[in-house]
């Protein structure tokens, strides 16, 4: 399996040498909302995402369950997730309306495939794509949040939320996820390491400021999620190191999928 490098090293705008202090023209992509993310990630041939392969080993968390996918980009992982894991429903959101448009189109295309097995088509019909910023402007609204999902996917999104909304934003993310999960529900988290933050910190002044103020580093997420402030009871790593080794995934993608269980 060949993966091209993703936003860490090889996003389109990185080809040109930076001239200005802030790449204001790149402000459009300040959320990691790249248009050709999956092309970069998988290359031209579409391949099964290794994360989906891993999740398939634990399908009991997803089959017939209600799922939220935070930061779904153009929806390709979401679509394959639904096909392979047969959830009861998937609400997939992204902060970028254009990406949601693309995701909907991708879904239409996928549904138009005549060779699609019946139950996969049915699963696709249970996906909803919606534009939404998970980090609400009015933070007090969190008090109305009620359990409604059995699994929440938050894959390669924390860096962007962290840079754009700071420690406060990351804490809000975790609190909201916890409140939205049913008892025995799981958060599937794929956090990006802190080492990759720096490169993105100069996107604009606000992000730079947020970056400098970060105290809660990704390495501390696990402890924080298990602390009383959030309340998860258990965590474990879904990614089998053997699988990772076998895949030709570049080092930058050796990010584990962590599972957090709400009891």
């Amino acid at each position, binding site marked *: 399996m060949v993966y091209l490098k993703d936003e860490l090293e090889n996003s389109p705008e990185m080809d040109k040498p930076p001239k200005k202090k802030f790449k204001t023209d790149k402000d459009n992509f300040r959320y990691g909302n790249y248009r050709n993310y999956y092309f970069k990630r998988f290359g031209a041939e579409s391949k099964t995402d290794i994360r989906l392969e891993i999740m398939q080993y634990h399908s009991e968390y997803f089959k017939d369950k209600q799922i939220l996918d935070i930061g779904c980009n153009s929806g390709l992982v979401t679509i394959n997730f639904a096909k392979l894991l047969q959830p009861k429903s998937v609400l997939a959101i992204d902060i970028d309306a254009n990406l949601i448009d693309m995701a909907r189109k991708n879904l239409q295309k996928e549904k138009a495939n005549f060779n699609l097995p019946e139950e996969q088509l049915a699963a696709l019909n249970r996906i909803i794509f919606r534009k*939404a*910023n998970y980090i609400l402007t*009015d933070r007090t*609204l969190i008090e109305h949040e009620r359990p409604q999902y059995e699994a929440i996917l938050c894959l390669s999104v924390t860096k962007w939320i962290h840079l754009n909304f700071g420690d406060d934003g990351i804490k809000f993310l975790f609190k909201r996820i916890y409140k939205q999960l049913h008892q025995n529900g799981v958060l599937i988290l794929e956090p990006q390491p802190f080492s990759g933050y720096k490169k993105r910190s100069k996107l604009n002044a606000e992000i730079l400021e947020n970056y400098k103020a970060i105290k809660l580093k990704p390495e501390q997420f696990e402890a924080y999620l298990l602390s009383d402030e959030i309340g998860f009871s258990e965590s474990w790593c879904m990614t089998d190191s053997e699988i990772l080794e076998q895949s030709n995934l570049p080092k930058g993608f050796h990010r584990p999928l962590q599972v957090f269980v709400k009891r």
Partner: protein
Amino acid sequence: MHPRNIYKNPPDFNKLRIEYPEFAAKVHIDVDGKIKLNFNDQESVRVLTQCCLMKDFDLKVELPIDKLIPTLPLRLNYILWIEDLLNHCSIKENVFGIDIGTGASCIYSLLLIKMHTQWKMFALEIDKENLKYANKNINYNQFDEKIVLINQEGSNKIFENLFKHDSNHKTFCVCNPPFFSSKNELVLGSENRTGKRKRPRSSYKESSTETVFTEGGELEFVKKIFNESLELKEKVEIYSSMFGCKKNLLNFITVLKHHDIKNFTTTEFVQGKTFRWAIAWSFNRNLLNFEDHTSKKKFEKKPNVLTHTIDDEFETTHSKILNLLSNLKINLKLINKNEKDKYFKYELEALENTWTNQRRKRRAGNKLDESSTFHESASASQEENIVMGFEIYKSNLKSSVNLKIFYLRGTMSRDCVNQILQYIKNNLK
């Protein structure tokens, strides 16, 4: 919605949730942080209504959960229309109102007194429980001097007890009549008589029979008011009632005409997709010109164009729709066409409501029971019609077809336009 109705814009859920913890306990937020309320949940609707009454009118009202929860925008529409009529008749002082069937909420009387502290209201009610709550609500708001509650228990008449209690002239009456003639009508008929979204059937379980069921439904009840008005005449200057079903209103108008009563006026209340009607009549010669009052209003209404897009080929969609319309016995007149650009404009005319019956038949599993046959015969004797404009054209961007449909004229309600479009949408799939 009446231009003076403060609920032209929906209530600010965010302000309500911050001010009222009981409301905050009911709201949900969607993934994007929009505040939502489940309108199918009676308890949520009840809390919303109570909080709005508190916030917008400074009224403390207790609403028992098993009774009709009044829809404020709709109640206000009626009240504002009555204000308009009184204005039109230059009635300003010594206003005495009658609220027939005030309910547990005592809603019309409370609102009217709040808005016109100089007025006096007589609130009539027959149901023991309702009387108890209405009395409480009057007390809570210290309106004991302003609102007189009249117990109708055991009375066959509407106005008898009232005039026994106080024989003076009254200015007007308002009435939201008990509506369902039978359980069948409840199931098959007007879905959302409360003005809210569809009410879960279970919420009627506890409802006392008096509240929602009445012999002969709303039409019989208003006829009773009318018959008594024939004797009382100018003892009440303006008689009025609401109707939840246009057919009943039309039937009632025939009754008025039969008695050669020309001094009446009607109106339509629209709140979202909910339609209600009201009529007022009078025996006072000074109050003539009612008709002018409404006809002016009617012309002010802008045509409400409904649109829909279908992702399909033009020719097939076009012919499918023409088929559907002919199934519904809707007459088509081609007004305009441009084959090259794939644009067609028609005038549609329906002489009977075939689409709701279709819906009912489907819901009732094709079984026609007594109440719906009654409705059909009633409609056949009635000279109903509706004329609509209809445009169908190919979208020049995508391979899709655009539809436009709008009300032009006729006696049937405007919501028929929406129903027909819905019918087309459902049957194209």
